[in-house]
């Protein structure tokens, strides 16, 4: 039997290799001379330290691929150092090689405890379109120029101060998706002025970290909690309608809210809002009068998700207000989230709220077990 596979064109063999884990795709270069050069044409390398027996073997492999290798065709690179605490200079050498190779998509995943720092080159790279970091510590940035960056995702990243974030965002003029989750900001001061991110479509950020003006182009806004101890309250949003910009494109909003009447009064700043997710309602803010029912609520709102819903006064008042006024509402979901109500309690609650008077005839009432965020496509990483 002859070797037919090796007679296939490079493009086809490379497509086959694209379905293999990186370690194995690289290993096929030892099959025969025909396969030897293909490793240099792999467009995607995703390397996870757990797949290697020991630290030295892992370092040798990455060195071999990134330093001795030819990275001309490399577009996507992912490095996950789950268990190995690597010397920072080693990481710097790797990242510098990647930056010089004109990589477009870079994901670096470190455990939070290692304090891994990145070389400044990574913030001055003209080819990078997607940048995702987990568990990295930023030192203060001297310059940022990421003219092609479309996606920035920082998860469990430690920043020296809030200026560092402002500096970073000011260098990303074409940014379309911004995800800042569980950030640890050492010096939490007032937010710095940054210009409006004109291309931004999706923002998943803690409410007080980035000025809303910068985000006002988005269609999807998720105001997340902050992980850092002592600043949990920063996650709760109690905006003042007169002081926030108009989000002309916003269709999806999810947030922790303090004072439901306050957020309802803000709805006039979200004229296209269709999907509202309340992660949790806090009731410290005094009730405000609602002079007019905002148009978006009466004629656009289709989905309403209420996290940690309870049959208590403010929750019920908010729910009744929505049901009474949202004329095109299709679905109401409640979650048991924080208080962990039982299935029976939830179905009892659904029975009660579905009996409230409502403006929309065709409205479904559901138990949403996924707690809030119905759209998680902002939270996808390489499969390491």
């Amino acid at each position, binding site marked *: *039997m*002859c*070797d*037919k*596979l*090796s007679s*296939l*064109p490079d*493009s*086809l063999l490379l*497509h*086959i*290799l*694209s*379905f*293999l*884990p990186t370690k*194995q795709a*690289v*290993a*096929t270069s*030892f*099959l*025969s*001379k*025909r*396969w030897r050069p293909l490793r240099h044409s792999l467009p995607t390398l995703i390397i996870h330290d757990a797949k*290697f027996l020991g630290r*030295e*073997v*892992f370092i*040798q*492999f990455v060195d*071999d691929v990134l330093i*001795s290798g030819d990275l001309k065709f490399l577009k996507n690179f992912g490095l996950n150092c789950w268990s190995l605490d690597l010397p920072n200079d080693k990481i710097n050498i790797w990242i510098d090689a990647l930056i010089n190779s004109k990589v477009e998509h870079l994901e670096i995943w470190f455990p939070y405890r290692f304090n891994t720092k990145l070389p400044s080159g990574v913030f001055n790279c003209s080819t990078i379109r997607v940048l995702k970091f987990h568990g990295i510590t930023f030192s203060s940035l001297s310059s940022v120029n990421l003219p092609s960056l479309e996606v920035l995702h920082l998860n469990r990243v430690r920043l020296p101060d809030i200026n560092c974030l402002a500096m970073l965002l000011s260098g990303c003029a074409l940014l379309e998706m911004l995800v800042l989750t569980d950030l640890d900001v050492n010096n939490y001061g007032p937010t710095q002025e940054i210009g409006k991110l004109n291309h931004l479509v999706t923002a998943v950020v803690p409410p007080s970290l980035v000025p809303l003006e910068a985000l006002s182009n988005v269609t999807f806004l998720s105001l997340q909690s902050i992980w850092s101890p002592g600043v949990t309250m920063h996650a709760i949003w109690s905006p003042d309608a007169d002081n926030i910009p108009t989000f002309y494109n916003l269709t999806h909003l999810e947030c922790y809210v303090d004072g439901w009447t306050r957020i309802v009064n803000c709805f006039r700043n979200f004229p296209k809002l269709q999907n509202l997710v309340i992660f949790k309602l806090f009731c410290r803010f005094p009730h405000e009068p609602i002079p007019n029912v905002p148009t978006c609520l009466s004629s656009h709102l289709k989905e309403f998700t209420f996290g940690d819903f309870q049959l208590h006064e403010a929750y019920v008042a908010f729910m009744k207000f929505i049901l009474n006024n949202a004329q095109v509402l299709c679905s109401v979901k409640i979650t048991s989230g924080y208080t962990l109500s039982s299935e029976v309690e939830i179905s009892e609650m659904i029975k009660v709220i579905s009996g409230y008077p409502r403006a929309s005839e065709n409205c479904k009432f559901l138990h949403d077990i996924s707690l809030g965020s119905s759209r998680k496509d902002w939270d996808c990483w390489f499969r390491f």
Partner: protein
Amino acid sequence: MSSSVEAITVLSSDGDEFKITVSAAKLSKPLNWMLEDVCFSDDCDEVPTIEVNSKTLVKVIEYCEKHAPRANSGASDSDAEELKKWDIEFMKMDVKDILFHILMAANYLHMEGLYDLACQTAADLMKGMTVSQIRKIFHIKNDFSSEEQEQLRRQHPGCSFD
């Protein structure tokens, strides 16, 4: 081409005739171009040849006919799930022989879905295998001299050759 034609006849590289419905043929870019260019009405006696052998063409047409309804109209999640299962069954074939031809055919006929499926199948056969096991499955001859192998071992200490 007249819109009344529902199926066309093509020749395999072995010279056998095959019928394929128009909607199924549209899954392949070159076949689609052929549909636009060539006269397929009943009184036209030109039958195009596809450079794919009969055994492979049967499989390719089977794939196209199965996938055509979904490609043309979109499908629900349950349809997609059913189709995925069907693909797995469809790809259970003699590796060394037909899989290679399917890869070539999907490439030549610009059929993205079948191309991905066949490449994925080939990759799945390699997954978790050692270098020497992969050589055995696909009859790949190790043409490195022992000196070259020794050199490779020195250059790539982190990698396994066996």
